[in-house]
């Protein structure tokens, strides 16, 4: 599967011998697949040259930014974009930043916070690329998914450079749409079952105002961090409610009144995961907090832009919570816990604890869109988890789901997962069965269709979108240099 010497040399001529590798001892460090080579281009021109060579030799390639996800069939070339790691521009006045693929979110956010700005960070964590689309904790005020990109510089699968929107016409990054129909329709990158073929080499992302501190006053040593003080215009709380309906009504009103910087519908198991540093501590905390909460709930962060704004937002929050019989979780009122949650949920650094720590693996059903509808479905999916908990196949989280508000509740995300030990085949089979069954139920009962499922079943039920996408891919990639299939979380 290795590249023959001449072809290898051609690629090496583009990036230099330091930046290409086909050593079978080194390449598996990336993913458990057999790559033909790993190449590290340093700029757009090099990416373009490599893509052209891939076309010439009919070699398949796939790029990674930070490489958290993705499907990598054997025999392909991996384009590792880590050398392209510059923040090209932070335009404070026009509220966008232009980044290269390997700028990670924590790096960009640290620069932005110094300037009173922020951006959407994927829930996976701040160590992921800032350039690709995604959704996360702050979506209530930073939006999510494909809605944050402005202009994009894209090397097509044939090796042409397309600069979308205002970039192509007037060399400005502020708009990604036009002239005419928008190429953002296809320039979206990583969502199963397909990713946009080709390589994004730079993108402008939308920025949002940040009234929090330019840096958090963190103290302590790993893993026991806390804030030396809570910023005077910020507050974090967890509220639980007597029923899902009351929780939803509160969430709705909070969105409509635009008072929360963040509305993260953590279940109590995730709160426990976030504020503890070991499995034992987490289990003890979960059992304790689980007794205190009255039912489902959410975590909020309020940020005041001015003292009057802060006061107003807090008062409205109090009213909404009390109208819906919400109860604040005492543990989170403790400034030590409040501070660390506030920090983790804006710097986005807790995902691994929530997902991997106490099982080793997790299988998930995430769905973006209409929050009340997906909550309705998730109640059933949670009930279906209970027998697995009883049998000891999955970590006991009370059968909970989670989710969050997007764009002040206009949209939302709901997700439910099972944490399990991947070394236990029975547990693995049970979780996979649950996932399949709940996806099927979502589909047959008309809630949504997870497009990560079997395409020949889901595609026709969604107006054959998969065939349209396939046609687009074939038209853009006549030499088939982009492997089919996309990223899988």
């Amino acid at each position, binding site marked *: 599967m290795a590249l023959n010497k001449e072809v290898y040399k051609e690629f090496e001529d583009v990036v230099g011998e330091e930046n290409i590798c086909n050593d079978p001892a080194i390449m598996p460090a990336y993913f458990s697949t057999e790559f033909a080579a790993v190449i590290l281009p340093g700029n757009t021109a090099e990416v373009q040259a490599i893509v052209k060579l891939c076309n010439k030799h009919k070699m398949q390639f796939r790029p990674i930014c930070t490489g958290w996800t993705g499907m990598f069939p054997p025999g392909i070339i991996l384009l590792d974009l880590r050398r392209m790691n510059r923040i090209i521009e932070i335009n404070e006045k026009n509220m966008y930043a232009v980044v290269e693929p390997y700028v990670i979110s924590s790096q960009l956010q640290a620069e932005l916070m110094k300037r009173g700005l922020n951006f959407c960070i994927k829930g996976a964590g701040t160590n992921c690329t800032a350039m690709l689309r995604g959704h996360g904790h702050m979506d209530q005020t930073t939006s999510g998914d*494909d809605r944050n990109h402005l202009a994009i510089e894209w090397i097509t699968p044939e090796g042409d450079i397309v600069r979308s929107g205002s970039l192509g016409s007037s060399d400005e990054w502020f708009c990604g749409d036009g002239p005419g*129909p928008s190429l953002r329709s296809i320039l979206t990158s990583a969502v199963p079952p397909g990713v946009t073929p080709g390589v994004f080499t730079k993108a402008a992302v939308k920025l949002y105002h940040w009234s929090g501190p330019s840096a958090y006053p963190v103290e302590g040593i790993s893993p026991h961090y806390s804030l030396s003080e809570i910023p005077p215009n910020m507050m974090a709380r967890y509220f639980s409610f007597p029923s899902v309906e009351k929780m939803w009504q509160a969430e709705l009103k909070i969105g409509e009144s635009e008072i929360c910087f963040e509305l993260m519908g953590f279940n109590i198991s995730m709160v426990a995961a976030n504020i503890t540093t070991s499995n034992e501590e987490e289990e003890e905390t979960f059992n304790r907090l689980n007794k205190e909460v009255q039912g489902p709930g959410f975590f909020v962060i309020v940020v005041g832009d001015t003292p009057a704004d802060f006061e*107003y937002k807090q008062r409205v929050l109090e009213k909404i919570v009390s109208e819906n019989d919400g109860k604040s979780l005492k543990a989170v009122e403790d400034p030590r816990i409040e501070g660390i949650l506030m920090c983790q949920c804006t710097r986005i650094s807790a995902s691994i604890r929530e997902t991997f720590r106490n099982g080793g693996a997790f299988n998930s059903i995430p769905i973006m869109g209409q929050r009340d509808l997906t909550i309705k479905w998730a109640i059933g999916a949670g009930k279906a988890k209970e027998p697995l908990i009883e049998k000891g196949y999955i970590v006991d989280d009370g059968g909970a789901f989670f989710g969050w508000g997007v764009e002040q509740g206009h949209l939302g995300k709901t997700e439910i997962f099972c944490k399990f030990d991947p070394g236990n085949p029975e547990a693995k089979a049970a979780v996979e069965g649950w996932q399949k069954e709940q996806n099927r139920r979502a589909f047959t009962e008309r809630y949504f269709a997870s497009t990560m499922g079997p395409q020949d079943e889901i595609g026709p039920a969604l107006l054959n979108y998969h065939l*349209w996408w396939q046609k687009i891919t074939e038209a853009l990639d006549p030499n088939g240099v982009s492997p089919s299939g996309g990223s899988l979380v």
Partner: protein
Amino acid sequence: MIGKEKLVKIVGAGNVSYEQKTLDEYSKDISFVNAVRPVCVVKPKNASDVRKIVNLANKTQTPLVPVSSGPPHFRGDTVPGIGGAVIVDLSKMKKIINVDRARRVAMVEPGVTFGELIPAAEKEGIRLNMPLLPRKSKTVIGSILEREPVIMPKYQWDISDPLSCVEVIFGSGDEFRTGQAAGPGTVKEQWAVGGVQKAPYGPGVASWHRLIQGAQGTMGIVTWASMRCEILPSLEEPFVVGSSNLDTLLEMISWLIRLRMVNECFILNNTNLAAIFTKKWPRGYQNLKDSLPAWTLFYTVAGYEYLPEERISSHIKGITEITQRLGVEAVKAAGGVSANEILKAVQQPSGEPYWKLRYKGACEDIFFLTINDKLEGQIGVMNELAEKADYSASEMGVYIQPIVQGTGCHCEFNLFYDPGNPSELNRVRGLSNSAVKSLMAKDAFFSRPYGENANMILNRDAATVAVLDKLKKMFDPNSIMNPGKVCF
């Protein structure tokens, strides 16, 4: 060509017209595009009619020109680009399909105008993010599909907003629904389980609605669209800030939007404000204009269900800090126009006659997207060109609309002219062409290329056009959808 009897069979004899007078009406508009007479006008009653018409057109290679708004048209996009075309006039598809307060969404057919949807939405406690004073005959779908700027940039998270989902018959004849509406299940089945057609992305990796927006009907015919709506405020306080210094107002407006403190907000020059608010023509116009500052920034502060007074007062406090820093003052009236009057006006479509026609009977709009830093230079260029073309720059209306939560702005020059005066008409026509060219050289981004200047605009970005061409071949393989528009 499609035979008359076939069209009659689809839509009924009363909905097909070959009358010369009718055809003449569709063969030109207020823009400078060449007049081309269509073969006939057909008015489908529903999506099934539309599908049949598209299928027939494919069999007979007949160009179709979809039109949803009523006249007067301004952009040339509804005038056939080539001969032999059938106008598909969607004005009979007038259903307001759904208005949902809790999910903040509405769904309408293409013939529904702003004047029709606004009261229906208000009844439920929600409202639309409107373009500035659309003409009475303008349909909601027409406006949204054109990516017209909206006057509440705070609620425009994405340039595609407020569009949520559409049902479209592609040029290929295939039916498609975008976003959440795609499925599983029919729209009715989705409703039954509590689903609405709100989430715009997908299905899958693509954002299909973005391909249909901005296409000027070249990809397919939209048979309904859903759109996000906003909560009706329980209390509103409008303000104006006048200044001769545009830069100061731009600085101010960008902070108002960045801090999400205002709902409606935009800047108009004195010509446009007078063109909109003059009550007694022609006498009142000059008087009103003379009373106005060169530039007026308008904004509204609003409160919703909870503690509305407090919300408004906290925002006013915040805004006062900005005005004090910038040395301007927020007041309740600019010259002879009150902030309340502006607010009331911009929450509705334009009164009749359409405000752009009141002054001289016709108007040519030159509009583009840009960023604040470049705006003054671009306005400077436009003023110079106008003077050079013997068109008094002070007669030119200017409208500046921040877009997408402050990541850019829409700048629009309104060249009012007398269509009965050939020399004035020619001057404006020449000015329009030269302005587009010179403004492009100053980095103006013409994201919505219409009419005579479309080619010049698209020629600057051959790489984008190459990809668009590939997409077009897929969704409209026989090129029946509005040929001659955009780059197709």
